[in-house]
């Protein structure tokens, strides 16, 4: 049994079923992200784990103990909110010490722990500051220290980075991950940002309309999306309409080009129309070794991003995005020019209908 177990969780607000038959087991020390578009029920799941919402049905177990009916303040969880959750009347040190004080921990022990936490978040000199004297990033670090100080069993983070500017967001998310690893604390991280989720998670649960569509490591989710929604939500996808030539052999045609899927038989019937998808990095400009499918294209846009060049090209009536690495000896193609693209059939993701 996992350390944190969510079993058949359901939540309805009035007639609105917001979370549907949600199941998730999280191992001790694991970092799991709930990823999905706004309104899909991520926060509601997290708030049920925290005890702010009571599940309509289902159960929550932490470390083998059923906490479904426990109040928040009995659950020993740590929580970090989107923003503005520090106590404005207290200094940084008092904020971090709050949970320890509530627990009745002695003054000496409290001070030691606060100093330790402030060192952990890299702000040892700000103990006497008030929240309004801190930047957004500093405030969120203090909020993290405050949540971790009483040694919670589970750490819950609800889009803690979304109010910060892009640079701080990236550095702080890495810092959160480093601290989480160091303490080995079981963590649920809610975000609608797929890049954020992929870069720091052990495992991602992609949610849609209150349902967990797929759970898996970022690599797994990105490369083997099980549903059309997951494929579209995680990363960028180029989609082509294809016709099944031979269901038995896994042979398709796309705009007259033959694509022989290496995995063999597929579930569709001969003559059916199916959608196949390709990641931008799976498509190459020009011909290349091992990329047997070649299609003519027209260059629409070229975005030079530094190490990566993102090209939009029109292929068989649709616009595809493809990424190539920058090479000093190979300038990007001019806009409007004719070109060829190529990809390997083994990189094709066949989307379920």
């Amino acid at each position, binding site marked *: 049994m996992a350390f944190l177990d969510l079993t058949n969780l359901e939540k309805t607000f009035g007639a609105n079923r917001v979370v549907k038959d949600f199941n998730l087991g999280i191992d001790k020390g694991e970092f799991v992200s709930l990823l999905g578009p706004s309104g899909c029920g991520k926060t509601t799941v997290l708030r049920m784990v*925290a*005890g*702010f919402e009571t599940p309509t049905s289902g159960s929550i177990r932490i470390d083998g103990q059923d906490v479904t009916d426990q*109040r*928040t*303040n*009995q659950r*020993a*969880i*740590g*929580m970090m*909110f989107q923003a*503005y*959750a*520090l*106590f*404005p*009347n207290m200094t940084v040190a008092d904020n971090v010490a*709050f*949970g320890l004080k*509530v*627990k009745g921990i002695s003054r000496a022990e409290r001070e030691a722990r606060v100093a330790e936490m402030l060192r952990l978040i890299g702000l040892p000199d700000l103990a006497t500051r*008030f929240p*309004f*004297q801190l930047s957004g990033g500093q405030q969120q670090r203090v*909020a993290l220290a*405050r*949540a971790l100080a*009483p040694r919670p069993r589970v750490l*819950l983070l609800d889009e803690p980075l979304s109010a910060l500017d892009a640079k701080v967001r990236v550095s702080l998310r890495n810092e959160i991950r480093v601290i989480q690893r160091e303490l080995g604390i079981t963590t649920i991280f809610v975000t609608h940002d797929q890049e954020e989720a992929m870069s720091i998670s052990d495992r991602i649960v992609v949610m849609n309309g209150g349902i967990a569509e797929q759970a898996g490591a970022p690599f797994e989710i990105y490369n083997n999306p099980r549903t059309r929604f997951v494929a579209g939500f995680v990363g960028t996808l180029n989609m082509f309409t294809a016709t099944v030539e031979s269901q038995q052999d896994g042979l398709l045609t796309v705009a007259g080009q033959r694509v022989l899927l290496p995995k063999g038989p597929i579930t569709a019937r001969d003559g059916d129309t199916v959608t196949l998808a390709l990641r931008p990095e799976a498509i190459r400009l020009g011909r290349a070794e091992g990329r047997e499918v070649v299609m003519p294209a027209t260059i629409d846009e070229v975005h030079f991003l530094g190490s990566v060049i993102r090209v939009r090209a029109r292929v068989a009536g649709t616009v595809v995005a493809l990424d190539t690495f920058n090479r000093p000896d190979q300038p990007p193609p001019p806009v409007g020019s004719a070109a060829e693209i190529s990809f390997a059939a083994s990189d094709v993701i066949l989307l379920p209908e």
Partner: protein
Amino acid sequence: MTRIVAWAAVLLGCLYFLLPLAGMTEFSLKMRRGVYSFDAYVKVFEDPTFWATFGYSLTLAAATIVFGVLLVVPTAYWVRLKLPQARPVVEFITLLPLVIPAIVIVFGYIRLYNTSSFLPLTGSAFGTDILLTMGYATLALPYMYRAVDTGLRTIDVATLTEAAQSLGAGWFTILARIILPNVLVAVLSGAFLTLAIVIGEFTMAALLNRPAFGPFMQLLGANRAYEPPALAVIAFTITWVCMGLIQLVTRFSKHERAKA
């Protein structure tokens, strides 16, 4: 041209307000024939009844403030947190004391809590004091509630509450350590308003027959010539000091924030 008219209007308003005050102050200084003196003030301050009634009203004001804070802060907090749809109703209730005259309230009290009732509060001095404190709290309710509610608007009540709960805090800790300190400035301005109301209140104290400052002023006014205006000036000063303190407290807290 419009500027001159505007200034004239302001001046006229000031005169309308200040002339009676100046006249009263001037009169209060004329107890000794032919010269200005503070004789009337000395008389007032020498009167032990002044100190007794003033002390009594001050004590009741303190009790009223404590009771008001204990009643209003949790109520306003709860309404904001859990019953936002009930806010108009609660606001209406807190405004009732402005509409219902104190005399109606106090007659209601006397009818409900007389010596032959189920709770004979008027039977003892202490019981009557409790009744009077409740009455004062009712009169101060519109101001206290508004002040606290405005204070609560400046903080994210729901998030702070949930943050505290996630750190293991119960309701009492949340109210005492997080909510109250964050609305302290608002509570203080409510408290000074309460003090000003209680010091000058006449109807309730007189009808409940308690030795408060208001009835003392009335008694003095009915029997003396120079002391009543002196007393009025003193009462005005107290009220204005209260107002000044409200300003100061608000200004101070803003200044603290601005320093960041």
